[in-house]
Every structure is written in C-alpha cells, then in structure tokens.
C-alpha cells in the first residue's frame, strides 16, 4: 500500500513539475473566438506576430451556438484557459460588471483609440455603460447586417420589363423597404422553386433580433432608451409596429422551411439559387465572392440595408471587440499584443487578410473600399449602425424578444401591436427586477 502511495505521489509530482516547466518556457497567448472565417484570418495575423516577437498566438474556436455558453462557463469558473476573448458586443455588460474583463480605459486613452477607431465601433464594442467613457475591449472585427443579391436575376431585360409593367418603376438595387418588399414579391415564384428573399428567423440566439432590428431601425424605431431603460413608446411605437409588420410580410416571400435560418441558410439561399436577395452579416460575404464556395460568385452583388419609409437608414450591428480576460496569468503579454494589433500597419494587414478592420483611417482609404465588391457598402454601413441592449441581463431580454416576435413573424396569431405591447411589458418587468431606470 505504501509503495503504491509513494509511486502515485511521485507520478503526481512529475506531472506537476512538467506542467510548470512547460508553462514557464513557452510564451503563448490563447484567444477565444467563434468558429468562422475571420477567426482563421486572426490566426494568420497571429502567426505574423509570432514571427516578429516569438510569442505564439493560438486562436481557439467553437461553433457559434456554443460560443456564449462556453465563454461564460470558463469566466464563471474563473478559468485562465483563455488570455483574450473576442466577445459579442452584448457581453460587455456581463463581462465588465461580472469582473471577467480587464478595464482597458487607460490603454484606450493612452493610445487615443476613441479617434483611431470608427465612432460606432467604439460606442458599441468597447464602452460600458453607454456614455461612461469606460472601455473594456478593443474593436477588432467590425460587422453589420447587409444584403447580397443575384445580379443576373436583377439585370435580366425580361425581368426588368415585367417588373416595370407591374410596379411602375425600374428594377434595381432597393433603395427603401418598399422596393425591397416589391422585389421580394416579384421574384417569389414557388412553382419555379425560386423565392423572393432570405431573412434571419432563428430564435435560438440573436438572429431573429438582428433581422427585425434591420427593419426597426430603418423605420425610425428604437428598442428603448439605453440611458433611462424606458421602453414604452419605443419598442411599441407606431414605427416599430410598422417595422414588425414589414418584417412579417418579408417572411411570406422566403423559401420553404425558412423558420430556423441564420447565416448558413442565408448564404445557401444565394449559392443554391433559392432567393433573389439575402440578408447576412458582412463577415459572411467573403465566401460569396469565392467561386469555390459560391457557383454564382460572378453574379452576386451587395447592398447596404435600405432606408425605411421616413428616409431613416440604419443597420443592426454585429461584430466584436477583443478583451483581456481578468483571470489570465499573462495579462502583460496580452497588452503587448493589443499594442501591436492597433498599429496602422497591423490594421492594414488585418483588412488585407479578410478581417473587417474598425480603424477609421483604413476604412476611409480608397484602397480598402475598392478591395472587394462589398467593402464600400460595409464602409457606408459602419457609420449608421445600432445595437441591442448590452446590459448583463441582455440574454433574458433577447429570450423575451424571441418568445414574443418569433411566433408572430412565423405566422402566429395576434397583431403587431399586441406582440410589441407584450414585449414592452416583459422588458419593463425585467428592468424592474434588476432595478434599472426606476
């Protein structure tokens, strides 16, 4: 027995000794992000950093549906598996008040990032609470919802003629939601297995919210007042009601079985010849101009989210900032990496690799805007974006939105007003529960 115990202890000791020595020798930083192309681009950028400094960068990824759960499980356990995390903009509240993120305000001010990065990205990816000038992340991947469309369908002379005869104006990239609706209706031909439009409907995370926000913000509506947490008269305003009905109408022009669709399905709508237009994050557009992943690459065009009836034009914000995890043992190394990351030449490299830089200078450059068919639309969009609530309880607000809006859009009973009044009541109750704005 004693022998076993001795050998067991020796074994444990050996493992510990090896562990610590590996730890001391290797300079390695782990960045956690979701599994998608931009994460691969970030890994490539990290490889450049390793060449320059010898510090190895590992970008660890997990599929989107698990991303939030996995990241917060690690945070809640105070684990140091990740030194940095590229977190969703909505996480700022939970990340900062929960003590999971390192306060980067000094870093931000020292490097004047408020001027270096595009204003919307600073406001939504870095600052919490809104207007407090406290910063928790460095804008990394700018993103917003835009649209792709089938140029060949739009430019077909026969279609153009038929469209003009039916609607009285020329078939072109939609300038407003009315045109978007008309074009969707025009191309919706179930008997030919062609459908009008692909929109977001998945209610398991934020897809439905992002899709609806595109209509809501362009119709001049708001989710609420982010400073006072007042929602009555915002989310259930006349503009919001009109926006919800417009979104519900768009759903009637989607391909069959479109009730759980997010970025994968919406890109498939273009690659599989299903829809004339498709909503998606700009981050997913690189694969649409790649002939290997999209047989219609040559015939795919892009446009920014159109204006609403009042002329307002906004888009729902995606994208992420990079934060240092407060449980990391290598925070100093992480700060060094961020210092390198915000340099102009790094940002240029980041954009060249396929990342959506948030650097205002790079965004404004001709070089960037002409690099791809969608960069110009991206540049235009990034200066008119709005985002969801970023409070720590955002997930509850999101769940309530899904619970109310999803059944209505998918064809459930009730009216838009009833739906949004009920949502306002839910949100009021939640804000009251957390003592906000009372």
């Amino acid at each position: 027995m004693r022998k076993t115990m001795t050998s067991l202890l020796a074994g444990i000791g050996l493992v510990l000794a090896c562990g610590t020595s590996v730890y001391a020798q290797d300079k390695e930083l782990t960045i956690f992000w979701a599994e998608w192309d931009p994460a691969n681009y970030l890994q490539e950028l990290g490889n450049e950093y390793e060449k320059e400094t010898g510090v190895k960068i590992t970008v660890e990824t997990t599929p989107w549906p698990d991303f939030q759960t996995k990241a917060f499980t690690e945070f809640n356990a105070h684990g140091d598996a990740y030194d940095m995390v590229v977190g969703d903009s909505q996480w700022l509240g939970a990340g900062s008040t929960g003590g999971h993120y390192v306060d980067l305000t000094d870093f931000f001010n020292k490097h004047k990032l408020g001027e270096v990065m595009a204003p919307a990205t600073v406001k939504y990816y870095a600052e919490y609470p809104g207007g407090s000038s406290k910063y928790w992340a460095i804008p990394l991947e700018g993103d917003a919802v835009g649209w792709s469309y089938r140029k060949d369908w739009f430019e077909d002379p026969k279609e153009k003629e038929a469209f003009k005869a039916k609607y009285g104006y020329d078939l072109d990239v939609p300038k407003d939601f009315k045109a978007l609706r008309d074009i969707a209706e025009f191309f919706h031909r179930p008997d030919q297995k062609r459908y009008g439009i692909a929109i977001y409907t998945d209610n398991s995370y934020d897809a439905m919210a992002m899709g609806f926000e595109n209509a809501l913000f362009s119709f001049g509506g708001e989710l609420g007042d982010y400073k006072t947490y007042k929602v009555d008269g915002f989310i259930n305003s006349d503009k919001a009601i009109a926006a919800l009905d417009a979104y519900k109408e768009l759903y009637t022009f989607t391909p069959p079985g479109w009730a759980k669709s997010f970025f994968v399905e919406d890109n498939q709508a273009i690659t599989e010849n299903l829809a004339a237009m498709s909503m998606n994050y700009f981050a997913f557009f690189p694969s649409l101009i790649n002939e290997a992943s999209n047989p219609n690459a040559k015939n795919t065009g892009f446009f920014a989210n159109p204006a609403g009836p009042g002329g307002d034009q906004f888009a729902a914000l995606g994208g992420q900032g990079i934060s240092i995890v407060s449980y990391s043992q290598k925070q100093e190394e992480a700060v060094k990496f961020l210092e390198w990351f915000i340099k102009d030449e790094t940002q240029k490299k980041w954009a060249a690799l396929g990342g959506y830089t948030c650097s205002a200078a790079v965004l404004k450059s001709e070089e960037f805007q002409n690099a791809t068919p969608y960069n110009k639309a991206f540049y235009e969009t990034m200066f008119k974006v709005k985002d969801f609530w970023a409070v720590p309880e955002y997930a509850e607000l999101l769940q309530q939105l899904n619970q109310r809006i999803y059944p209505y859009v998918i064809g459930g009973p009730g009216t838009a007003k009833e739906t949004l009044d009920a949502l306002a009541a839910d949100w009021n109750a939640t804000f009251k529960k957390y003592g906000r704005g009372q």
Partner: protein
Amino acid sequence: MATTMITTLDRSSRAAARGLSDISIRNLFIIPTILFLIVFNIFPLIYSLGYSFTDFRASTNAPANFIGLQNYRDLLNDPYVWSNFAITAKYVIISVAGQLLVGFGVAMLLNRDIPLKGLLTTLLLLPMMLSMAVVGLFWKLLYDPSFGIINYALGLGTFEWLSDPNMALYAVALTDIWMWSPFVMLLSLAGLSAVPKHLYEAAAIDRAGPFYTFFRITLPLVAPILMIAVIFRTMEAFKTFDLAYILTSQPTAELISIRLYKMAFQEWQTGRSCAMAYIVLIMVLAITNIYVKYLNKVKER
C-alpha cells in the same frame, strides 16, 4: 435480501479463496462508489437546492440573495413554463406510445422462426446505437422541404415538417420513435421468448382465437417487461434535449429541458434554473413512482 448477500460470502468463490473479507470488499467497492455518488450526484443536488432559493447568477460577481420561494412562485406563474410542460407531456405521450406500438409490433413479427432472424434483429437495433445529435442532424436533412428525401419519397412537395408550428413536435416525436422503438422491441422480444410454449399449446387445444390468446396470454405475461420499457422511455422522453434542440426552434416544440438549458446557460439565471430543475425532478420522480407501483401490481398478478 441485500444484507444477506453481503454478509454471507460463498466459501468456494474466488473472492473467498483470495482471502478478501467482507470488510475489504466494502472498502474496495462500496465505499468508493458511495463517495463518488456523494461527490458528483448528491452534493451538487443539495447544493443546487440551496441555490434554487436565491437570485444567484453565475455570470456576475454579485452575491446570492436569499429570496425564499420567489423562484418557484415566478416559474409556476409563468404561462410559458406551463406551455413548456404541456408540450413535454404531449411529446412524452406521443413518443412513448409510438415506440410501444412499433417496438412491440416488430417484436411480435420477429418472434417466430424466420430466416436470418439474428441479422435482422441486429440491423433493426442500429438506430438506437447512434448518437442523438447525429440522428438529429441527419433527420433535419431528411425532413428538408427543398431537398429532403422524405417529401420526395412520399410525394409531399414542399411540406414543412419542422417549420410548421403544428407539425414540428410530431416530427421530433417521429424521429424519437424511429430511434427508440428498437429498444422496446428488444425488451419485448426477451419477454415474448420467455412466455412458456405450453400455454399456447393449451390455448390451441381449447380453440382460443388469436385475439383471445394475445390478450389473455401474451400481453399479461409480457406486461411487466413492457412496463420497464415504458418507465425507461418515459424518463428519457421527459429529458429529451439534443434531438429537439437540433431539429427545430419552434416555440411549439420547446420542451422543458430546452427551456431549462436556455435559462441556465444562455440567460445565466442560475438560481431560477435550479428551481426549475427541481420542479422537473419532482415531476419525473412522481411519474416514475406511479409506474413502479403499477409495475409491482402487474408482477403480483
């Protein structure tokens, strides 16, 4: 019964030959098992009961405040939670009844001398050996309205199995029936082959009809083992998560476990989700208890 088994160790057994005393068997096997259970099952169970009376959120640093029965009150007053329970009940009934019918039916068919019976049985068991997540993913493809093979084979056009709010739950139940009927079939086969042949011979001599034979001989004798299948399948169906989560996001198919997952790991309402888990646990315990009582009754007959 259990105590006698522990205290009287068969003298000719290998354990006795090697000189393992009852005490060392207890130390080697029973104590580690109990410790394991306490550390990984009992302790978290009791700990989460404590959390269920607080407003604790694992995602923040705020301390947990004791709020009494508030969580339970809120949950039981939430119409969405009630609808989740109603959906779960409907799902359990459809899926277990379907599995029972299909599983027992196939077992009846197989319970005779047919060529390649062994191979056939093995092949029929394949679905339940697959992972739930994998089954979910490929049934999602099978159900697809645009290119799914089910609509193609049945000539249903673009029938929306998973996007139709009224159909989604049935589609999930259908997949579950496909996957778990073999389990019921296996247990039924064991039960059927244990029915003494002379009973059938006696019934044949008495000129009993096939229905009479089935309801008076086959069913009563197989009932206890069928009950066990029902208990297992009910418990599992009650807890179904992966299959439904992957297949559809329709609110009309949101089972209680999906709701619980969202509450616990997306919204991080740790306290409230603990309360919810307890409500589910009590329900499963109650249902299982009713079954077990009934099982004992059936066995006594």
